[in-house]
């Protein structure tokens, strides 16, 4: 035997807008296959009389339409804005973070330029060094040398007969 309240899902009355707890209300299926949940005899009677819920001041439809009770709803909802607080990280203390943040843009730009120039110089130096080394190696080798031999492989066996 299954429990009656296994699905405690409150439905909403299609007429009044109130919640329908299990065990209450009726479901009315019209001939156009649309089903309506009605909370009680009051709603059912009015529904069958084809009354419009938007014209009955106690229904939720009416209240929403005429914006009743919205002021209280709005007052309850107060937006909460989180304050972002700066915290120190393992690599940088709070002061250093603040200092960096407050650096003037010109100073930052000049620092950045210096860093860029430095890296460029370093790169150029590395490239020059590489070139020199390469030319040395090439001078040591005689004749045409394959890429693999450059890397240090044994020389290719030349064909002596066809």
């Amino acid at each position: 035997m299954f429990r009656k309240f296994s699905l405690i899902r409150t439905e909403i009355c299609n007429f009044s807008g109130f919640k329908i707890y299990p065990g209450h209300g009726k479901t009315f299926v019209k001939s156009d296959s649309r089903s309506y949940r009605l909370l009680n005899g009051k709603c059912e009677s009015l529904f069958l009389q084809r009354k419009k819920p938007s014209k009955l001041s106690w229904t939720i439809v009416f209240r929403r339409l005429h914006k009743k009770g919205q002021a209280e709803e709005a007052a309850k909802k107060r937006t909460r804005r989180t304050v972002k607080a700066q915290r120190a990280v393992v690599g940088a203390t709070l002061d250093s973070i603040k200092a960096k943040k407050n650096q003037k843009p010109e100073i930052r730009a000049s620092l950045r330029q210096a860093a860029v120039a430095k890296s460029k110089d370093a790169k150029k130096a590395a490239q020059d060094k590489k070139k020199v080394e390469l030319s040395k190696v090439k001078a040591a080798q005689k004749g045409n040398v394959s890429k693999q031999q450059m890397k240090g492989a044994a020389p290719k066996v030349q064909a002596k007969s066809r």
Partner: protein
Amino acid sequence: MLLLKSLAKVIDNSGALVVEVINVMGGMRVASLGDEVVCVVKKARAATSDGAANAVSKLKKGDVARALVVRAAQRVRRLDGTFVKFDDNAVVMLSKQGAPLGNRVLGVVALEARQKRWAKIASLAPKMV
């Protein structure tokens, strides 16, 4: 809540339109959703109309056949505590073996049809409530 002499709408394409109950199967006095019923065809579709069943012979006025109640205007309590009621009394025609006579069902059918093992009709139904 269909009794002797109750009229019901036929919502399949077996050819019958309105049907009058002459007996309720299972020794009950009253037939509700998902109950089988014996009935007489009071009004039928014209013989040459299209959309009628082609598999079995069409029902004519005066034919006696069995039917399954699929919609009842009297409210019916479901096991979860809700009550359901429909706008009208409707019925799907059956053969003596329990197979539907039509091959299409039009309109809503109550869930009791599936619950009471009328799977064929439940599968034909476009919507179940």
